[in-house]
């Protein structure tokens, strides 16, 4: 589904991603790990069109995403969440989700202004869809919470809302940037289940960045480890977790030797 080849991203003299090849197959859950500053978020930013890579190619189902702006890339089927959670804080919870249907809805200025039947119907559908997506998280984001402003949510709920918002864009490929960051063990466990359910119930292909190794172990079909923008290991969890390059990247050379 997603195909990156020979991808390089440079900021001036700094190479955040270096000649990276990566394939994600349909229905797969792939984790990206690596120490801070390894280039994981940069990878997401390149895929979603926020940065234009210095060289290399990004393809979705054989079509190149290079040169498309983030909105078009989203329409092509890629949705994401942000490491630092970027919700529309002053809009209500349900509006956050509804707004993300923009790409596949049609109502324009005039049909909304005149409240034409067509646009009213669409509005109803959008709302129903948003409610359905929010109930994906059980009772966490339902009922009275719909009309709360997003800034009033707890941290974990913000992360959930961001996922719901991404789903509203009807993606094929979902990019999750540290979905479990800042969550307690119970919530982390829940997120692990949510990711699995996203694949099963929504039929999504998922690329996930995560520092919590329990989550990584729990969800991944395959793990890719980055360090300084270079892919240093790839394979199933056990293979990558014990790979000497990875141990070295996280703990330094000395630790790798002792082991």
């Amino acid at each position, binding site marked *: 589904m997603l195909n990156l080849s020979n991808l390089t991203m440079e900021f001036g003299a700094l190479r955040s991603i270096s000649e990276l090849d990566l394939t994600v197959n349909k229905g797969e859950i792939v984790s990206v790990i690596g120490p801070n500053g390894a280039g994981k978020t940069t990878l997401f930013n390149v895929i979603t069109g926020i940065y234009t890579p210095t060289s290399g190619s990004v393809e979705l189902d054989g079509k190149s995403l290079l040169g498309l702006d983030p*909105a078009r890339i989203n329409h092509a089927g890629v949705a994401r969440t942000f490491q630092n959670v970027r919700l*529309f804080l002053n809009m209500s919870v349900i509006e956050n989700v*509804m707004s993300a249907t923009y790409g596949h809805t049609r109502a324009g*200025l005039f049909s909304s202004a005149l409240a034409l039947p067509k646009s009213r119907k669409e509005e109803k559908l959008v709302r129903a869809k948003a409610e359905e997506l929010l109930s994906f998280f059980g009772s966490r984001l339902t009922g009275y919470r719909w009309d709360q402003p997003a800034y009033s949510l*707890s941290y974990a709920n913000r992360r959930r809302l961001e996922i719901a918002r991404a789903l509203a*864009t009807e993606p094929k490929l979902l990019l999750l940037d540290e979905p479990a*960051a800042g969550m307690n063990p119970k919530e982390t466990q829940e997120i692990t289940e949510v990711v699995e359910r996203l694949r099963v119930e929504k039929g999504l292909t998922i690329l996930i960045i995560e520092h919590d190794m329990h989550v990584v172990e729990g969800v991944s079909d395959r793990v890719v480890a980055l360090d300084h923008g270079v892919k240093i290991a790839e394979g199933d969890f056990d293979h990558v977790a014990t790979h000497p390059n990875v141990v070295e990247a996280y703990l330094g050379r000395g630790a790798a030797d002792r082991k």
Partner: protein
Amino acid sequence: MSENRVPEEIQENAAHEAAKLGIGTDEWVAQHEERTARKKGLKGVPQFIDESIPAWARWVVLLAAAFAFGAFVDNQYLLRIGVNLGLFVMLSYGLNIVMGYAGLLDLGYVAFYGIGAYGYALMSSEQLGHHWSTWLSVLIIIIGTALLGYIVSLPARRLFGDYLAIVTLFFGQVFVQLVLASDNITFPWADDYVDITAGANGIPGIDPFSFFGHKFLNIRDYYWLLLVLVALLTITISRINRTRIGRAWRTIREDALAAESMGVMVNRLKTMAFVTGAAIAGLAGAIFAAMQSAVFVSGFDMPLMTMIYAAVILGGSGSLAGAVMGAIVMSVLPEVLRVTNYSEILFLAVLVLTLAAVGKSVKRFTINIVSIALIGFAVKILLGFASIKITPTEEWVVGPVSRALSHWMYVPLDRVLWGNCAFVILIVLIAYFTTTTPRIKTILLPIIGYLGIFLWEVRLVTDVNTTRQLLIGAMLVVLMITRPQGFLGKPRVEVL
């Protein structure tokens, strides 16, 4: 390999972030009572209005009042104020779309109003000798200003915040300059110069609107037209705001990058906001020109711009009701200020209210009032003994209020000089007041009050326009510090 080290760090970070934002698990629910508890005093007024009257009822009351005004008021002057208010509401609505919804700071907005007015003037006066039908000229103006809005929005696609503000401000200045300079243009292919805009002289003799053979000869015609337009705009804009396009506009204001990543076509929507706002302003301009029957470019410059901004911000940007409220304050208040007697009463009322708000208890309030009175007498007597001329001249006494005050207040011969001194001292004292200890504040307050009255009486009442602008300026600063969301707006949370 230690697996837990990294996540813990991040968790801590996140907790820290959350604390910074003032968010904990379900704080919202925990604070429910506190949020709904009524705030006391002046601060509770907006909340009280918000909670006790449902939104639709407010609009119905407003509409009924506006209708009654148009039906029963015969005074031309009052009707003109009504028409001005209508125009002001239209302008505030347009700006509210651009700034309130989409969050684009467009400081050249008033130029579209001017272009609409000049456009109509050129198509319906002897200036260029055209007298086109109202339908045609209004249509051309709406399309033309929309197109221009589109062009101005092109740089807006790349720019945000401050840059956009300056570019649009510059655009507004360029409009003024072009109009001023276009009374004497020599085209390369012509021998003689042409006069397009009449420069600073303005264009007189503009035809009134005329629809289906009905000429708008009475100011009341414009009033009804504006009432209908404003009602239509209120309905359509609030519908748009609630649905797809409006939501998308608001996502841009919240976080343009996130919006784009969620599939919102940010550039197209920015353009759409600009175009809609520009078209509304252009239409308002055409109405203004037809009603006024003359246009002058100086009327479309910074002072008007600041008043529209003040209106939208005072009411609460992003809220239509707020835009109406702001427009009322900004267009009716100046008229009140124009009549010296009213303005004095208004000023004293505001002063008393301020003292009541600042003083908190009845006792404090009384002390303040009495102290101000005493200071007045003291100054008058002291300066009298020092035989510095006390001259309550006839010229100064303009109404019962100032007549009453003249027994109390020392009026210097050179009012400009002493007024200016009072102005400077007052500013310094207010600045000092905001930074000092409560004790000194108590002492300063009556002095500031006295100086305020003095300044108002000897200087400000006679210079309405300057006073108005001074008040607007001060209001903008104070409002940003105390209630940045405006009177009817919701408080905003921003993380940037």
